């Protein structure tokens, strides 16, 4: 009998193999994918194809070097899921080599170097995203402006393969980026005048986020993820935003703006809930999600980058083992475990 090494995510329901879970998560991104394609053009779809090909090739390559069964691991869809999440997170106009770099780095350095699926301490997709954000800040922060000028399929293709020099006419700052650089303007003034903060731009981002919310609710309904991480992350983000909005509404953005901009929903439901790199216990997930929400607000408001989901998730990945240690559920019939040094020696 061959003993297959089954890696986490461990699921207890019969028939729920890793590949099924991964496939459902991929399917749940479809509403967001459609919304993003509708508002920002076909770039996301082209990126998706590039990302998937890169993921499969790099995963197969490393599995071959590591002398693991290639087909067995390729069929668990985890590499495809990493590729999908990256393609959704990257701007639709990034050049093809940027997508390839991000995906290859995710698969090779963030996942396979640590031992493949189930052994990676960090979310692979977010490692690839963070690497590219640090390395290529300019293409990584240019988004298609939703102001009525969505590029055609051929224009998207040309932008990605670097043959369209006029891509700048399509791109503008995202609402988060525009708000961050309002340079002393009052909030109301910025929302009235800055191009990236106009009604159309805001509403397209809102629809994209609502589509991810729908996909995320489907995942919770299917019990693929639990509600703890997304709810605590969004709640923490809303509380932080609400607190500072209440103190100074002329400089801070409203909680609604923060919840419906950038990668808030994608991050909360699809990225922070990665079963490998996040917390395992439900109480731990609450702290983990809240930590991400707080970090996202801090990075968005006072940090150097317009959005902070990637860095927030990566920083809380660091903390996940510690959170799990301190939030271990009590096993049935045992007293509450005593944590830390117990000088009295009682119990």
């Amino acid at each position: 009998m061959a003993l297959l090494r089954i890696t986490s995510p461990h699921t207890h329901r019969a028939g729920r193999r890793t590949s099924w879970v991964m496939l459902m998560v991929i399917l749940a991104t479809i509403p967001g994918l459609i919304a993003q394609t509708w508002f920002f053009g076909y770039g996301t779809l082209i990126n998706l194809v590039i990302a998937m090909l890169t993921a499969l090739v790099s995963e197969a390559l490393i599995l071959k070097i590591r002398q693991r069964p290639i087909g067995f691991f390729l069929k668990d869809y985890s590499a495809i899921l990493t590729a999908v999440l990256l393609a959704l997170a990257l701007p639709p106009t990034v050049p093809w080599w940027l997508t390839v770099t991000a995906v290859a780095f995710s698969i090779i350095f963030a996942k396979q170097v640590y031992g493949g699926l189930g052994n990676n301490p960090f979310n692979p997709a977010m490692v690839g995203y963070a690497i590219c954000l640090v390395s290529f800040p300019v293409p990584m922060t240019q988004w298609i402006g939703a102001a009525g000028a969505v590029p055609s399929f051929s224009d998207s293709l040309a932008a990605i393969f670097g043959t369209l020099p006029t891509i700048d006419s399509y791109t503008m700052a995202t609402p988060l980026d525009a708000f961050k650089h309002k340079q002393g303007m009052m909030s109301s003034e910025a929302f009235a005048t800055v191009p990236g903060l106009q009604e159309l731009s805001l509403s397209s981002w809102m629809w994209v986020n609502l589509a991810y919310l729908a996909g995320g609710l489907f995942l919770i309904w299917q019990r693929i993820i639990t509600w703890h991480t997304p709810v605590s992350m969004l709640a923490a983000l809303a509380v932080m935003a609400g607190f500072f909005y209440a103190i100074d509404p002329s400089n801070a953005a409203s909680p609604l703006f923060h919840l419906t901009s950038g990668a808030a929903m994608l991050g909360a439901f699809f990225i922070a809930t990665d079963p490998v790199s996040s917390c395992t216990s439900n109480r731990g997930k609450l702290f983990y999600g809240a930590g991400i929400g707080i970090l996202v607000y801090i990075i968005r408001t006072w940090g150097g980058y317009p959005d902070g989901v990637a860095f927030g998730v990566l920083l809380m990945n660091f903390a996940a083992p510690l959170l799990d240690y301190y939030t271990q559920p009590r096993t049935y019939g045992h007293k509450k475990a005593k944590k830390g040094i117990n000088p009295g020696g009682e119990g």
Partner: protein
Amino acid sequence: MSAEDTLAPDTPVENPAPSGPNYGEILYNGIWKNNPALVQLLGLCPLLAVTSTVVNAIGLGLATTVVLLGSNIAVSLIRNYVSEAVRLPAFVMIIASFTTCIELIMQAYTYELYQILGIFIPLIVTNCAILGRADAFASRNPVAPSALDGLMMGLGFTMVLVLLGAMRELIGQGTLFTDMHLLFGEMATSWRLEIFSNYPNVLFAILPPGAFIGLGLLIAIKNYLDEKEKARIAKEQEGQEKVSRRVRVTD
């Protein structure tokens, strides 16, 4: 009091003096088998911090090599006169003196490079590879092997620095040997190679994380080569054993 008397009983002795120094082994140790950067993992702070270009790497590597060579010779010369208790402060004083010399020389002749390397030149004092060699080798060996050991350890360190610097410069900026005139004078300006034209700078490779990953890859390559070599030797020995067994049978 001979060198052997000063040894603490439980400290490991590298290349004990009675059998005579084995220069080939010292060379092999410094460059490959016991490379300070790839195997001992000493002196990582400057290694990771300054290797963003080849010229930085060569500059710091040569400075470290000179300090290692000088301190190894000096420590070896005084090894029979310094008592066990005060040896470390004495070694650090020697290393600090050589570092100060190098710092002043670099300030005089390669001022721009001196400014780029900044705090990492004075920090050569704290490079544990140097104190490590002084204590583990130079303080218990005669001058000639100590000098060779210092030189080889320094060259091994420089080799890794330059490899890492080349990797990071190539990936980070798409060039090689940029700004070599900082170290080699005006004629080196034309050494700059632009490997990829129109290259988008990969900031990640120039930032510290790129150095960590680059060093990890270099260590992986070294281990891979060692494994291959070991496998080859094992195969050869197997072949020889078979031959000798056949000889015994006919005996």
